[in-house]
C-alpha cells in the first residue's frame, strides 16, 4: 500500500508541473507584445487609440468587400509625408523601446524604394504567431460590418495594442457561438449555421 501511495504522489507532482508549465507559458505570452514582430513597429495604440483614427480610414474596404484591405504604402505616406513623428523613445506595452521617427523613416524607406511592406499576418486560426484564415473559410467583412458589428467583436481592443495580436480565438467555435446568439429566429439560425455559408 505504501508503495502505491508514493507512486501516486509522483504522478500527481508531474501532472502539476506540466499544468503549471502550460499556465506559465501562457502567462508569459500574455504580458509581452505577443503579436508577431512586424517589419515596422506600427502601433495601433498610437493611431487608433491615442489619435482616435477610425479603423476604416486605413482598412477602407470593410464595407464594400469581403476583404478589409491593408493600407497601401501610399496611404501611409498620405499622412507621414507631413507627420514626421517625434524623435523620442517609445516603450511598448511589452517593453520594447523604439524611436518613433526611426520607425516612420522605415516606412518612408519603403516608399522611396517603391516596395510594399511585408506585414506579417496576425489574424489567423491557428495560434497567434502565424497564418491567415485557412482558405476553405470564406469570411465576409462587408456582411458583418453592415450588420453593425464592431471590429472589436472579433479583433479585440486593437486600439489598446502596440503590437497587434490575435485577441479572440478565431476558431469555428467562436464563429458558431456568435452566429447562434445573433440569429433572429430558428430559420435564420439554420441559415447562419449552414456550412455552405462559409465553406465552399
Amino acid at each position, binding site marked *: 500500500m505504501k508503495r502505491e501511495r508514493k507512486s501516486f504522489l509522483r504522478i500527481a507532482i508531474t501532472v502539476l508541473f506540466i499544468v503549471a508549465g502550460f499556465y506559465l507559458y501562457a502567462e508569459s505570452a500574455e504580458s509581452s507584445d505577443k503579436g508577431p514582430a512586424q517589419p515596422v513597429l506600427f502601433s495601433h495604440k498610437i493611431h487608433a487609440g491615442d489619435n482616435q483614427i477610425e479603423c476604416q480610414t486605413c482598412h477602407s474596404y470593410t464595407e464594400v*468587400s469581403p476583404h478589409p484591405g*491593408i493600407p497601401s504604402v501610399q496611404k501611409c505616406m498620405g499622412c507621414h509625408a507631413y507627420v514626421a513623428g517625434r524623435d523620442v523613445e517609445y516603450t511598448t506595452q511589452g517593453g520594447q523601446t523604439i524611436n518613433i521617427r526611426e520607425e516612420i523613416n522605415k516606412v518612408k524607406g519603403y516608399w522611396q524604394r517603391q516596395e510594399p511592406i*511585408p*506585414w506579417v499576418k496576425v489574424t489567423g486560426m491557428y495560434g497567434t504567431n502565424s497564418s491567415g484564415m485557412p482558405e476553405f473559410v470564406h469570411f465576409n467583412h462587408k456582411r458583418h460590418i453592415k450588420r453593425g458589428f464592431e471590429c472589436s467583436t472579433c479583433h479585440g481592443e486593437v486600439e489598446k495594442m502596440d503590437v497587434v495580436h490575435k485577441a479572440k480565438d478565431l476558431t469555428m467555435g467562436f464563429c458558431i457561438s456568435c452566429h447562434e446568439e445573433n440569429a433572429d429566429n430558428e430559420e435564420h439560425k439554420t441559415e447562419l449555421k449552414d*456550412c455552405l455559408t462559409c*465553406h465552399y
Partner: protein
Amino acid sequence: MSGKENKEKNGMKRRDFLKVLGVAGGTAAVAGSCSEPVEQIIPYVIPPENVIPGVPKFYATTCRECSSGCGLVVKNREGRAIKVEGNPENPINKGKTCAMGQASLQGLYNPDRVRSPLRYNTETQRLEPIGWDRGEEILAEKLNSLGSGKIVYLSNNVSGTYSKLVAKFLRPLGGKHYVYETFSHEPIRKANSIVFGRDEIPSYRIDKADYLLSFGADYLETWLSAVSNSIGYSKLRDVDHGKTGQIVHIEPRSGMTASNADTWVAAKPGTEQYIALGIANVMISKGLNKVAPGPIARMVSGYTPEKVAALTDVSADTIKKIARDFSTSKSLAIGGGAANTGSNATETMVAVNILNYLAGNIGKTVDFSDSLSISDASSFSDMKELVEEMRSGKVEILIVHNVNPVFTLPGELKVAEALEKVPFVLSLSSFLDETSEKAHLVLPESTSFESWGDYSPKKSVTGITQPVMRPVFNTKSAGDTLISVSKSVEALKNTFAEKKYYDYLRSAWKKRAAVLSPGTSFEKFWEALLVKGSVTTTPAPVNVALSSRVSSVSFSDPQFRGEGDFHLIAYPSHRFLDGRGANKPWLQELPDALTTSVWDSWLEINPAVAAKMGLEDGSYVKVDTPGGSFEVQVFVYEGIRPDTIAIPLGQGHTSYGRYAKGRGVNPFALLPAATDALSGGPSLLSTKANVSSLRKRDLLVRTQYTKSQGDRHVAKTVALDQIGHHNGAHGADHSEHPDFYPEKEYSKYRWGMAIDLNKCTGCGACVAACSAENNIPFVGKKQIAKRREMNWIRIERFFEKNSDGSLDVRFLPMLCQQCGNAPCEPVCPVFATYHNQEGLNGMIYNRCVGTRYCANNCTYKVRRFNWYTYKFPEPLNWQLNPDVTVRSKGVMEKCTFCVQRINHGKDLAKDKGRLLHDREVLTACEQACPSDAIVFGNLLDDKSKASVLSEDDRGYKVLEVVNTKPAITYLKKVKQERV
C-alpha cells in the same frame, strides 16, 4: 529543404509575382485545403484605381481564339484574370462561349509561353533569351538592310485596325501581308462569287430557319462561328406547341454536328453535290421552287433522284422528301466542313447555293449584307505560292504572327524546308510552336488579354480587345513592337506619328467615332465602347441576283489520291480547331464529344470493317496514304461509312509546349497539297488510305467506355407528336413513390436546374467553364486511363438505334443532381455532405475525411475524389478562383451549383435588402452553354425560367426509380419523323 528556407522562398516568390502584377492585398487563394498557411500580406505600394481587393472587376474584350470574334467579359480579381465569360451585349455570341473560349485563359497563363524575346544562337543552335532593346535592334537592322528579296507578313485573321497598321508598316518596305486561316472556307466564297457574283461569306442565319440542311458543315464545331451557330441551333430546337425545327445532315461521317441532326444521311464521300442537285431537280420538276430557276433548270435537269441515288448511296425517296420539306419551310442549306473539301468542293457549294436560291432563302436566311471578315483571308493556293517563293529564296524576311504553317499546311508542301531557305524569320507569336521554333528571332507578343486591339468578325460588328491585366511575362503587343521598331528603320521613320499601338488604335477610332456617333465626345464614346466591348452597325441591305457565271459550272466526280480502300477524312476538332488549342490542358482533358477520348488521336472506323479486320476499340492500326503512314488507335464507330475512315486534326505536335507535344498524330503532315480545283482551297478529303492491323491493343483512353445505355433509359427521347400525351412511357415517369419520410420544405430558395436534351449538342463548353470556375485540376492521360478525371460535369454520350436501325446519338450533361433525397448524405459519417435549407447538397471539403461512401452511393456517379494533390504549374495557378477552395488529396468534391456565385449574388442582393431575382445568378455551365440547354434557378419561384421548364411536358428525372428527387429536370430529346 528546411522549413524556414521553404517559407522564405515561397514568400519571395509570392512577392515577386505580386510586383509583376502591381497589386496585392486580400488573400488570394492558391493553397490547398490543408496546405501550409500564407505567411505574409503584401499591400499595394500605390493602389490601382478602382480596384477593391475581394471585389471582382469585369472587363469587356474580344475572344481571339478563332476567327469568330466573340465578345467576352473577363473577370479580374486583384489584378488577375480568373474567368472568361461571354459578353451578353455582343451580337455574335450573346453572352455565350465555346470550350476554346473558356480555355483561353490557359493560353494566357500557359507555363510554356515565350517569356522574353529570344534569338537563335548559331553556336549553341538554340533560341536564347535577349532583351527587348536588343531584339528590336536586330529586327531594325534586318529591315534597314533589306535587299531585293520580299518581306512577308504572315498572320492569322487580324481584321480591324491592326491589319491597317500592318499594311502601313509593309507599304514602304514593299512587303505583302498574307492572312492565313487554316480553314478559310474558300469554296464558299468562290461559289458565292460564281453564283451570286459576291466573293464573300454571308451570315447564315440558322436562328431564322426551321429547316436546316447541312452538307457536311460542322456548324456546331468549327464551321464559321460555332457559338453563333449554336445559338441559332438552340432557337431552331425550341419546341413550341408541338412544333420544332428539323435538321438534316449529309456527310459520310456522323460527327458531333451530324449527331445532333434529326437525320444523318451518309452519302458517298465527295458526292454531296449530286444530292443537292437532285434536290434542286425535284424542286424544279415538282414546281416547289419559289424563285424562277433560269439557267439552273438546265443545269440540274440531268440529276433525277434515281440517277443521284445511284451516284451517292442515298435513296431517291430521301431526296424527294428532303426536297419537299426544304421548299415548304423556312429553310437554309449550308455546306462546308472537312468532308466538303474535296476536289469538287466549290461545285458542291454552288449546288448548295442553288438550293438556297431556289428556295428563296437569299436575303432571308442567307444574309449577304453582313458578310464575315474571314472572307478577306488569303486562299490556300496563295499560301502554296508563298511557300514556293520561300523555297526559291525570294522571301528575305518572313514575319510570322500567331500562325503555325509548319503544322497546319499539308506535309507535301514541306513548309519546314522552305522556311529554312528564308534568311530571316521573325516570330511574333506567344508560343514556340513548330513554326516559331524555327525563327531566328522571337519577339513574343502579349496575348489578346494583355494588349489593346480591335477585331471585326463581320461587317456589322467590331469588338475591342483591351488588356484585362498586366502582361504575365516580359512580352509586348505586336503593334507596339512594330511601331517601336519603325522608329529605327530608315524607310519607316515617319510612318507612325504615335508612340504606342494604343495611341494608334485610338486615333483610328477617333475617325470611326466621328461617323458612328457624331454628337458625343470621343472620350465618352471610347469609354462606352470599352464598357460594352463592341460597336454594332446596321449594314445596308444588298441586292443579290443570280450571276450568269453559274451556268459555266460543270459538276465533276471527286478526285482521290492513292489506291487505298478507304477515304480518309481529316476533320478539325471542336476542341483544338487546327491544333492551336492543343497546348491547353483543359481542352486536352475535355472529352471529345463522340469518342470521349482525351489527350490523344484516334481513327474512327466502321464496326463492320473493324469486325472483318479483327479490330476493337484501342487496337493499333497502320494507316498508309500516298503522303506517308501513321500508327494510331482505333475507335469503332457506327457513325461512319464502311468505305471511310476519319481522324481528328489538332494533335501530333512536335513542340508547342508540354501539354501539346508528342500526343497523337498530325494528319496534316500526310495530306497532299491538293486543292479544290475552282477555289484553290485545301483539300482535306483527297486521300485514299489503307488500314492494316498492327495486332496490338491498348486502352484508348476515354472518359466513357460504355457506348449504349442499354436498358437504363438515362437519356430519354419523346416523339414530337407524343409531347403532352401523358400516356405510355411518359406517364410512368411521374408515378408517385411512397415515401417513408415527409417531403422536405424550403422557405426562400430551392435551387434547381432544367437541362434541355433537345438543345444540348455535347460541345463541352460547360465542362471547360466549370473547370475554370471551380478550380478543377487536370490530371493527365495516365490518370484518366484510371478513370480519375476530375470534371464535375460530364457529357454522357450514348449511341442508340432509331426505330429504323439508324444511329441515334444522345448527349446528356451529368452533374450533381442536388437530390432532395440524396443517397450520398446519410452515409457520410461526419456530415461533410448534407442538405441545406436552399436545397443544395453541400460538400464541405475541410470536413471530409475521405470514406468515399458518398461516391459509392451516388446514383449518378458525379462525385470526384482527389486521389492526389493535383498541381497547377506556375503560372496556371494564377487563374485559380479565390472564391473556391482548392482541394487537396483525400477529399471528395463535386458540383454545388456554383455555390460561390449564389453566395456572392445573395450578398449583393442583401445589400439591396431583397432576395435574389431570377437570372441574377447563373452557374458557370449555364453561362457558357452556347445552345442554352442549361437553365438554373429557384424552383420555389413559379415564374423562374427553371421552374417553368421543370414543369415542361418533356421533363423527367434521370433514374427516377431510385427516388432521389433530383433538383435537375431533364427535358427529353424530341424525335421527329425521319427522312
